[in-house]
C-alpha cells in the first residue's frame, strides 16, 4: 500500500510529490470545504431542508487528492458520495445541494465544468465513463477520465464490463475505487474474496495500485501517475484508495446496527484532514490563525451555497416534461395540459 504521510504528518521525503505551498494549502482548503459542506448537508437533512444525503466524511483525502491531480481538460464521473471530487473540479456547491434537495437544476452542470452528474445506480457510471474516455481516444483528444466508485460497486457487472472494455481498448481511464470498507451494512471482506481491490486489475490486463486513502499525498501521487500514463496512451489504471466511511451510509441509515463504535474510533484517529494538517504545520505552511481563517471563510462559502440552493425556484409543471426529448411530442403537451388543469 502506497503511503507517503504517516499518521503524525511525517512525510517520506523520497516519495513526496512536488507541490508548491499554495497548492498544498489549496488542497487543504478543499478538504476542509468538503468536510464542512458535508456536515452542513447533514444538518440540512435533519432540519428537513434536504432529502436523503450520502456523507463523505473520512474520504476527503481520497476525493480531493485524486481530483486535484487532474488537469483542467480531464473529466470525472462521480458516484453519489463524491461531493469533494466534484467541488475540486469546479462544480459550485449549490448544485450538489440542489440535487439532494430534489431539484434537477442541480445536475445542470455548467458548460465549462467537466463533471458528469453523479450516479446513483451503483457502478453504472463506470462503463459510461469508460465509453466517454474511449471517445476521447477515438477523437485523438488528450483528456483523461476518472470514474469514481466504491468497494461495493466492484461486485456489479458494470465494473467488470467497464474494466474489461478499458483493458481491451486501452482507454485513457483512471478507475478510482474508494474502498471505504463498507457497502451500506456489508463489510469489504463479504463483498469479494479478493485480497485487495487493486489486484482485480490484473484480470483485465492492466495495473492496479492500492494507496492509503487517508493520505492526501499518496492519493495525489498515484492518481497523477495514472493520469500521466493514460494521457501517454498507455491505458487505464485501477487505483484503490483504502479509506473509511466515518458516517452512516446515508442520512437514512443507522450504522450502529452493523458496526462497532470501536472500529469507527480507530479510523477517526486516522482522520485524513488531521493528518494533512500536521504535515502542513510541520512544513510551516499552516498555523492556527490561518486555519481559523480558512474555516471561517469556508463556513461562509458553505452558507452562501445553502442560500443559493434554497433560493432556486421549485420546478414548474412544464419542467418535468420539457427535457424528456429535444422536442416535446404531442402526447407530452397533452399530459402537461392535463396536469396544469388539475392544479388550476
Amino acid at each position, binding site marked *: 500500500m502506497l503511503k507517503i504521510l504517516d499518521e503524525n504528518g511525517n512525510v517520506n521525503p523520497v516519495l513526496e510529490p512536488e507541490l508548491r505551498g499554495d497548492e498544498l494549502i489549496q488542497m487543504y482548503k478543499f478538504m476542509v470545504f468538503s468536510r464542512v459542506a458535508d456536515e452542513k448537508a447533514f444538518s440540512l437533512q435533519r432540519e428537513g431542508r434536504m*432529502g*436523503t444525503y450520502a456523507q463523505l466524511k473520512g474520504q476527503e483525502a481520497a476525493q480531493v487528492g485524486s481530483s486535484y491531480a487532474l488537469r483542467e481538460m480531464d473529466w470525472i464521473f462521480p458516484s*453519489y458520495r463524491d461531493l469533494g471530487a466534484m467541488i475540486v473540479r469546479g462544480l459550485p456547491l449549490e448544485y450538489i445541494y440542489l*440535487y*439532494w*434537495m*430534489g*431539484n*434537477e437544476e442541480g445536475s445542470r452542470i455548467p458548460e465549462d465544468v467537466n463533471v458528469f452528474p453523479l450516479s*446513483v*445506480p*451503483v*457502478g453504472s457510471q463506470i462503463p459510461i465513463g469508460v465509453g466517454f474516455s474511449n471517445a476521447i481516444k477515438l477523437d485523438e483528444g488528450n483528456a483523461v477520465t476518472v470514474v469514481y466508485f466504491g468497494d*461495493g*460497486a466492484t*461486485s*456489479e*457487472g458494470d465494473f467488470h464490463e467497464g474494466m474489461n472494455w478499458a483493458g481491451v481498448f486501452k482507454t485513457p481511464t483512471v478507475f478510482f475505487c474508494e474502498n471505504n470498507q463498507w*457497502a*451500506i*451494512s*456489508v463489510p469489504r471482506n*463479504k*463483498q*469479494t474474496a479478493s485480497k485487495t481491490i487493486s489486484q482485480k486489475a490484473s484480470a483485465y490486463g492492466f495495473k492496479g495500485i492500492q494507496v492509503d486513502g487517508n493520505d492526501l499525498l499518496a492519493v495525489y501521487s498515484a492518481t497523477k501517475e495514472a493520469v500521466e500514463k493514460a494521457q501517454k496512451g498507455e491505458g487505464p489504471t485501477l487505483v484503490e484508495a483504502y479509506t473509511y466511511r466515518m458516517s452512516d451510509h446515508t442520512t*437514512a*441509515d443507522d450504522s450502529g*446496527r*452493523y458496526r462497532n463504535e470501536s472500529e469507527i474510533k480507530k479510523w477517526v484517529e486516522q482522520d485524513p484532514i488531521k493528518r494533512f494538517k500536521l504535515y502542513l504545520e510541520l512544513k510551516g505552511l499552516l498555523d492556527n490563525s490561518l486555519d481559523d481563517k480558512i474555516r471561517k471563510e469556508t463556513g461562509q462559502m458553505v452558507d452562501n451555497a445553502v442560500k443559493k440552493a434554497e433560493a432556486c425556484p*421549485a*420546478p414548474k*409543471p412544464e*419542467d*418535468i*416534461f420539457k427535457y*424528456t426529448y429535444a422536442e416535446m411530442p404531442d*402526447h*407530452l403537451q397533452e*399530459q*402537461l395540459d*392535463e*396536469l396544469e*388543469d*388539475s*392544479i*388550476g
Partner: protein
Amino acid sequence: MPVLNIVEAVNMALREEMQRDKRVVILGEDVGVNGGVFRATVGLQEEFGNKRVIDTPILENGIVGCAIGMAVYGLRPVVEIQFMGFIYYILNHIISHAARLRTRSRGRYTVPLVIRAPYGAGIRAPEHHSESTEAIFAHIPGIKVVVSSTPRDTKGLLISAIRDPDPTIFLEPKRIYRALKGDVPDEEYTIPLGKARIVREGKDLSIICWGAMVMVAEAVANEAINDGLDIEIIDLRTLSPLDKDAVISSVEKTGRALVIHEAPKTGGLGAEIVALINEKALLYLKAPVLRVTGQDVAVPLSQAEDYYIPSVARVLNALRDIMAF
C-alpha cells in the same frame, strides 16, 4: 389481532414461512445483519441464521441468477431488490430463464422464486428510488406479478407467492409502507394469486387500481359522494395473471371505468385493462375508460414528485369527464 403496517406484515409473512418451510431462504443486499434498508427482514437473521438470511454482495443480476439456481435445486428463495429502480439488471435472468425454465424443460425444472421490491413514488426519495415499472413484468409470460395494498393482503399474498411453484415479482408500495396500518391475523392464511379485491362497492363507476393508488381511489370515492356518485373500487392485487372477471363484471354493472397507476401512461398496465374492457364489455360502456397515471417522463426528483403521482384532483377531473361524456 395485531395491528401492523405493511413492512411489518412482510416481516411476519417471511418469518412464518421460514418457520414452516426450511427451504425458504432470503437473499439480498443488507437483508441480514441490517434487517433490510426498510427493515422488512429485521430479526430474521437472528432467528434463522446467516445460511437462510443471506447478505449478498451488490450484484442484482447475479443475485437473481443464483437464486434461480437455488430454486431449481429445490429451495424457495425470496430475493429482496432494494428498490425497483435497480431491478432492471435482473430482466435477462427473469425473461430468459426464470420465466421459461418450466416450459423449456417441459416441466422438469421449475423456479419457485419470489422477488420482492419496494416500488413507487411519494416518499421524497432520491433519484431512481421511485419507479413503478410493473408493466414490464406483467408483459413477461411465465411469471406472476403481485402488488399488495394493505397489511392484511401483504401477508396473505406474500405467503401465496412463496408457496407458488412459479416465479413471482412481489411489489410493495413503499409510499404506504408505514403510512397504513391494519389488522393482520396472527394465524396462517393465504390470499389466492390472481384474484382481485373489491375495496368498495358502487354503481356509477369502477376505479381499477393497485398498490398505493388504492388510497387515492378511496379519497376520490369519498369526494365523489359530494357529486352524488357511488364509486366502486377494484384493487387488482395480482397484475399477472389479471383477474379479468372482476374487472369485467364491475364494468358491466357500472358502465364506466377509470384506471389509476403511478407508472407512465403509455404502455402501462392501464392500457391492458382498457383493452380488456373494450374486448369483453364494449357494449356496456357509457363513456371511454380513462387512465390517470404518471406522465410519460422520468419520475422527477422530490420537489416535483407531486406533479407526477396521480393526485385526487387529477382523478376527479377524469371522473367528471367520464360522467359528462
